[in-house]
Each structure stands twice: as C-alpha cells, then as structure tokens.
C-alpha cells in the first residue's frame, strides 16, 4: 500500500486522477477501521490532511462553505453559534479523540445511514461540493447520498466542501445509542426551524438505508403552525399536534432489525425524538430572539 501526500488541492486532484482507486483519507477514523479489519485493501491511500484548502471554512452569502477536512471539534468550537444543529450532532460523535480527527467530509465519504453529520445537512438543505481536474459540482446532500455506504462521487473527484445556510431559527439534533457516549446511532433525528420562510426541515438518521427527509410530517406541522398563525403569535403547539408530528415521522422510517436494535424500537424511538425535538425547538423559538 502506497501513501500519497499532496500539499495542495491541485496536486490532490492530479494524484486522484493518476491513481484511480486511491482511497482518500482525512481523519482516518472510518478508513483505518476498515483497513484494520481487512475489509479494504486499496493500493494507494491519498492523504488529504496536508491540503490547506480542505481545512478552511468561510462565510458566503447567507451561509457557510465548510471545507471537507474541518474536524467535528472545530465545527463545535468555531461554528457552534451559526450551525447549532450540526454542532449538536458533532457533539454526539464518538469521543474527544474521534471528534478531533473525524470530519464531515469523511462522514459524507462513508455515507453510512448512521452518520451523525448527515441529518443536520439534510434538514438545512445543504449542498455537497465535489471537484476534480475537470471542474466543480454542487450536489444537494440528499442526491449526493445514493444508498447505504454509497454516494455520487465520481472517479476523479474529491469532496471539497459543503455549503450550508446559517441557522435562521432553532435547531436540534437527538441521537439514540444504547450507552450514554461513544456509540453508533440506533436512530437519530435532526430538525431545523425556518421562521422567516415558514418552513420546518427534518431528517431521520439510522432508520432507513439513507438519512430520510420527512416531507409529509414537515408539511403537516408547517400547516399546523401557519393555520393558527403560530410563527407570529409564538403560541404553543398543541400536544396532539406534536404527537401527530411524531407519528408521521414514524411513518417515514424504514428501519431494519440488527444487533443495535429492533425495527420496532427504531420506528417508535424516532417518533419520540421528533416530538421532543420539535417541542424543544419551538420552546426556544417562543422564548428566543431568532
């Protein structure tokens, strides 16, 4: 196995093009496990940790461009205020060591349905930026992730960044694991309120082959809120509407049973998370300035 170490993005694209099948490595927290377990034996490993462009984030109109190599720790510390949903999700990832190394770029690369970085991107309609010597593409995250552990990355391409709007309302992320830290999600739920647009974004994690948006539930609750003019009045959402939202989220889940949990549990649990996160986000909206 050979180790390729580009110093800049251009070199990275060249090496990626000249070594088809080279496996990019960023934090290494997924790929090193695969190598150790002998699940993968790539001929080349392409180390992206020395590519400065990937480790940067910047503001762009109404949002952020976050380099694929920005660690979870940095997202929490540097972007926690502006991207609270993603920061909450980042806090649930692994342990301090994993958060120091692991990246959202790697999470997108792995495309696991249990990836904690993904539901917040779905809930905020983020886009993935991929690029190669040929040029740059921006793909909505829900189109980028094409299946369990599958994504739309082309042969010569690298994930360079994701583009995500700044939070325009309260956001939440909630994840179930059997133990209270360092655990892969049994199921998870991400939520973003957009009061200005009158929209609610929501996404289930780890309860279907990919993260899934919960369109019907979103439309239902948007209807509830606008019908009673709740965006303006900031009055309570009724308990029955919250529960109904949870029930509709359950309907969107298509989980399997495995060593981490049964399908029945995952289904029921995402409903509970949906109801609770919506109530927290709404409470924050009612009491808050956003």
């Amino acid at each position, binding site marked *: 196995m050979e180790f390729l170490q580009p110093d800049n993005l251009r070199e990275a694209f060249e090496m990626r093009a000249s070594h088809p099948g080279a496996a990019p490595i960023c934090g290494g927290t997924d790929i090193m496990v695969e190598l*150790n*377990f*002998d699940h993968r034996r790539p001929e080349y490993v392409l180390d992206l940790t020395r590519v400065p462009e990937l480790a940067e984030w910047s503001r762009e109109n109404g949002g952020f461009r976050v380099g694929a190599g920005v660690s979870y720790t940095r997202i929490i510390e540097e972007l926690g205020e502006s991207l609270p949903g993603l920061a*909450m999700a980042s*806090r*649930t990832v692994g342990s301090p060591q994993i958060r120091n190394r692991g990246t959202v770029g790697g999470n997108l690369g792995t495309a696991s349905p249990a990836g904690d970085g993904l539901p917040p991107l779905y809930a905020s309609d983020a886009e993935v930026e991929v690029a190669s010597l040929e040029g740059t593409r921006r793909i909505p995250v829900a189109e980028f992730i094409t299946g369990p552990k599958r994504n739309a990355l082309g042969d010569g391409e690298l994930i360079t960044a994701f583009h995500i709007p700044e939070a325009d309302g309260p956001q*939440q*992320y*909630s*994840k*179930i*694991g*059997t*133990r*209270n*830290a*360092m*655990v*892969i999600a*049994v199921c998870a739920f991400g939520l973003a309120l957009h009061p200005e647009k009158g929209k609610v974004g929501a996404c289930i994690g780890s309860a279907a082959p990919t993260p899934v948006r919960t369109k*019907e539930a979103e439309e*239902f609750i948007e*209807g*509830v809120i606008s*019908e*009673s003019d709740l965006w303006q009045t900031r009055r309570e959402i*009724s308990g*029955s*509407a919250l*529960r*109904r939202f949870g*029930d*509709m989220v*359950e*309907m969107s889940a298509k*989980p399997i049973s495995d*060593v*981490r*949990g*049964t*399908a*029945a*549990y995952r*289904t*029921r*649990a995402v409903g*509970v*998370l949906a109801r*609770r996160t919506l109530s*927290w986000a709404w409470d924050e909206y009612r009491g808050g300035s956003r």
Partner: protein
Amino acid sequence: MKSESAPTRERPIIPASNPGRIGESRPRADGVPKVKGEFEYSSDLWMDGMLWGATLRSPHPHANIWSIDATEAEGMPGVHAVLTHEDVPGRKVYGMEVPDQPVLAWEHVRYEGEPIAIVAADHPETARRALEKIAVDYEVLDPVTDPEEALKEDTPKLHLSGNVLKEVHIKHGDVNATAEVVVSGEYEIGMQDQAFLGPESGMAVPDGRGGVDLYISTQWLHIDRDQIAESLDLPPEDVRLTLSGVGGAFGGREDLSMQLHSCMLALDTGRPVKMMYNREESFYGHVHRHPCKMEYEHGADKEGNLVYVNARLVFDGGAYASSSNAVCLNAGTFACGPYNVPNAKIDSFMLYTNNPPCGAMRGFGAVQVCFAHETQMDKLAKELGMNPLELRIKNAMKPGDKFPFGQTVPEPAPVAEILERVKNMPMPEEEEIMGRDLRRLPGGVSNVTHGEGVKRGVGYAVGYKNIGFSAGFDDYSTASITLSVEDGEPLIRVHTAAAEVGQGGITLQAQISRTELGVEKVAVLPADTRIGSAGSTSASRQSYVTGGAVKMACEAVKEKVFEKVREEFGENGELSMEDGGVSAGDRRIVSLADLLDGDEIEETVVYRHKPTYPLDENGQGDAHFQFAFAAHRAVVEVDEELGLVRVVEIATAQDVGKVMNPQSLEGQIQGGVAQGLGLALLEEIQMKDGKVQNASFTDYLLPTIFDMPPVRMEVLELADPDAPYGLKGVGEPPTISSTPAIVAALRDATGRELNRVPVKPERLAGIEEEPVRRAPQPGSCGPVAERSES
C-alpha cells in the same frame, strides 16, 4: 511511541519505589506507565529474527472436516511453517478440567472460530495471506445452539461422552416441602465477555536443545506449562514460562489460547514466534461467561420466612469443557443466595453446544444465580407486601446456619449487617429533573431527553461466593523470600509465580514483605515457572493464598534471623524486625547489614488453606473454605419512553476481613461494579445460529465513564480467623449483586418485569417486536386521537 522490547527472564531488580505496609494506600508501580502508554504488554515483545504466527479458524459452528490442504500456503515466499493437528507432538487435546479441546481441529469443528491450522511467516500480513491459501473441505452440519435442545435424547451428540457435561443435584432438608406463599419465575442471562483490553499475545523462543521459553499473558503459568508440555510431549522442565505484561484477564486467560500454537511454531521453525490476536480474533480466542436459563420457585410462610427454594439451572457450556464443571458446581451451591433456606432442591446442568466455549469470568457461576435469586426475593416481597430489604434481612444467613450444600456457615457472615449498611447509607441528592446538564440524564450528550419521561428507581441485592478453589482441589501457592544486603541496605527479593493481571498483586506482595520483615527495599521478581505454582489469579484467591505464602516465607526468614540473633547475641526474649534491624522491645540489637555480613537468607515455602471436600451424590459437603459477601443499592433514572438509563449511584457494603491496600480495594469495587453494570445494561455477545454477531467494541458495548456512576462504599473488616491477616478475597463480590440491584431499580422505575439481562432499551420501554404503524389521520391539525405515552 514506546519501544518494543526483547523478552528477558533476567530483569534488573528495581525495588518498588513506593514503600508501604499493609493497610496503606500505595499507587501501583504499573499505574503511571500504563496511563502514559509506556507499560510493556506481551503484545510489545520483539526479537530480531522473530516470525509472526497466525491462526486459521473455522467459519462454521459445526462441520465435518474431510481434508486440509496446506500445499499452496507452504509454498508462499516468507512462510516458514504451516502446521495442523498432525503436527501436534503429544496429546492432541487440552483442557484444565477435562482435556476435550483439540489443539488444532481434526475431523470436526464444534464452534465458530475453532483453530484448524497455524502459520509462521516473516510478516504478519504474509501469515494472514497464507491462511487464505489453506484449503479446508468442510461438510457443514446443523449446529446445536440451544442447551435445552442439547439435553434431549434425540439431539446429535457433540462429544462421545454425550451432551451433558456436568450435572449437580443438591438435596437439602425436605425436598417436597410446601409453603403458604409461593412465587416462581424464569430468568435468563446473556453471554458476557471479559473484554480485557490487551488481546491474547506472547512470544515463544526455542532454546536450541528441544525446549522452549514462552513469554506470555496468562492467569496461571503452571497450568499453562503442564498443558503445553503434555501436548508438546516434553518434560515440564523443558517448557519455561515467564509472565509478560498482562492487559486484564477477568477469567478469560485461564484457558490456553495462542500458548501452544506459538510454541509449536517456534519449535518447528527454530525461530522466535510472536502471536498477537486482534480484537475481533480475541472474541473467538477466549471463553466467555456462561449464558444460563434458570427456573425458580420460592416458598415462604406468611411472615416471610423462607421455607424452600427449588431451582433448575441450565448452562450453555459451549463446545468444550473449559472450567464449566466448577461453574456448574458453584452455581448449584450458591443458587439460593445468602439466606437461611431450610429446604432446597437444586438441579444444575451444564451442556455442550456448538456455541463458543464458556468458562471462567469474574463471579464464576454466582453471577447468574444471583440475578435469579434476587429477582425472586423481590417478587416474594411484593407477594407478601413486605419491604424487599426487610425480607432479605429477615432471612439473612448467620454463622451456624447450614448452607444448602450441608456445610456450616462459618464466622464471619455479616449478611444482615451489610444489608443494614446499604439501607442506612444516605441517598443521592434528589435533583430537579427538568433543565439539567445533559450528562446527568439518560442518553447523555446524545440529547434525547431534557427530563421528559424520566423516572427514578431504587433497587437492592445481596450476593455471596466462595473464595479460592473448592471441592477437594489441592489449592496452594509457593513463595520464596531472600533477605540480603545490597549497597549497605537490606533488600528483600520476593519470588512467586502469581500472575499480576492488573489487580495489584505485586504491590501487595511488597507490602506484606515490608510489614513482616521491617525492611523498606523490596524487589518483586518476575513471575515464572522456575518456582513452584502459585495457582491461578482467579477466584479472588491470590491475596489469600499467595499473600499467605509470602507471609509464611517471611516468617520462615524471620525465624532464621532470630535464630542467628539468639546464637550470636544470646538473646532469649521476644524479638522483632524493624527499620532494617532486630530489636528486643525498644532495644536495638543489631542491624541486618551487620548481622548478615554478606550472607543471604532464603526460604521457600508452600502455603495451603484448609482442605475442602467434594460434594456427595446429594450435593452435600464442606466444599468451600471462605465466603465473601457484598450488598448493593442502585439508584437509576429511566427514560420510560425510550428505555434509556442513567445509573445515578451505586452504594455498596462489603466485608473484606482486612483492608490490605485501600486504593486497590476501591479499584476492585469500582471495576467490579462497572462490569456488573455492563451485564445489567449493555454487555452481550449476540449469537445467531452459532455465530457471533458483534465481535468488536463497536457493537459489544462496555460502559464508558459517562455510564459509570459514583460508588458509595462501606467496607467491613471482620477478620476470618483462618486467613492471613484475616483478609477475604475482594475481586468478585462487587460484580455479583451489582447487576440484580440495577435491574431491581429499573423495575422500580418502570414497573416492568425484567427477567433477562442485559436489559435492552426495547424491553425497558415495552416496545414490541413488530413496528407499530398508525395510519395518519386526515386533515392538517384536526382532532387526533390521544394515545398513551408509553
């Protein structure tokens, strides 16, 4: 990075830098290096010219082997040896109690992961690739995976001796006794793993004369040596073992793993051979805690006095015997718990199946039955309308009572007292549930609840277990003490074969020696087979048995010193050793430096505790020599809707006879509770059709620091008159009753019947197997039927 180091049997003597006597807290010499990553584990061993060994394992839990073809693997560059059962020079099977386990399989494999062939190559990757080139022709057979199934007449027999490995039947008092109040239940415990952090590893070095030196992580050097010598067809003196750095054990290192394989490869190639399992292989490379199904019936009178206990225990022993016989016996003897039970009928069965072999793990048979008998006691209390603690205290066994196996309960047996203690310990402070820091809620920073659905519960349990080896086993330890003067200062060298597996045995040996001989400088030599056996570092026995041997050897040395003083100084009064010299009362007679004048005094002794006896056909006999008791109170908070748990606090009271080292004791209690918590909530090797589903720490979940609550402890020091310093073994009791205490607290919080551990969130939240689908109601926010929150 730490430097990898060549093994040596001749290490420089580094006197422990932490003087301290018994009763004092002394940090362990290995503590700081372990935290800094500088400790030398057996996986760090290195020698120039060494080869790497690897093991081919069966992918099938049950199969016939028609042929093994290693030709292609043997021809690979870099491969130095490929060995199969045909290459085992001596006995082709091994085992501590029953030699039924093939060194390398022939004709049959009986569990997934069973070793079939071994390879030595100049690179670990080459060795792994060579394994892939070994062609094994299997005829896959249906596995027998349910012990109840294995028990049936018409089930295929996995061994010539049949599927019943062991049965123990205990008949105590009137086995047909009846009672006014009766409760019954069925309980089940999953397969827990010892999950020691340093996987199996070691290095075998051929001596060029047909013998071999093995540097190894193990719990018992001599039983390894004897089994290795037998299968290598060598005299025991040609197989020399030296303990290397051990990364935890908990029972999982009592059986052989790579020991014999590395020796075979080393002798075959004439080169040092290192073997090192990775985490996944480790799950297949050692035995686990026995899963068990238990049917119980308790009878009591209306006042709550126990009248009888009937129990039927069915253990899954897996494919080979390991220490299953002893587990079966232990479980039978402790099945009723530490209560005065006038009548009992206990049937304990150990079955062979095609599941992984099960064997020793902290608690050894007492853990399984404790979960059942304590759940039964709670049920009985409920039936009687009594407080569960009062019911326990009322029935607590006392010295002079009879155990169900006929032995008289010896002094001290403070069961009621430890229960009173946990009852009276202050409760953790109530804290407003809403608005807490997430880390103090079920789910932690995963942010699943801000207090919604969270209920608190409290549960109690008490358990007990034997210390040391029982039922007629010749259980002894050997120690050598050498007193000399180096650079003008007296020095004690302690030599035993006791395995330090992380329990602090080395520190304890030094503390005992200092205490006995009044000498500050103590060097504990590496444990090896140049001295006689110390027995196993298991059954909470080393402080007692090797501690006893070290004390006895010190006394023998002291007697020699006193003789010399009496001869040379004509002293006839009472003498003592203090501050590196000999005194009579306050009067210093001579320093050891002057007394020894360049000589050494060496004494080697063998120490035995009092004898034990096998059970008779009714399960009666003086089987055990010491008993240790602990009680636990658990306070938990459960998210009722999601079935997630935060254990708020564990309170425990334990009788230890004598606190030898407070810090070590605290460590044992904390660690034991963590392992008990793991069993209650998380830890299970999940099996499907004889195959392990979660052989990794991604899915075999151990408690983290966030899952582990503070432990409030009270320690009793009621001396055992037969034991050195009055001490009792302390390693296992914290694991035994912590599990049922936590589950009792979960029941208290949720009102659910929880008859199986680990308790999964599904069970705790009462979520059925089938997904519940509710059709959405029409309308945007129209009336929605209320549904219950659970």
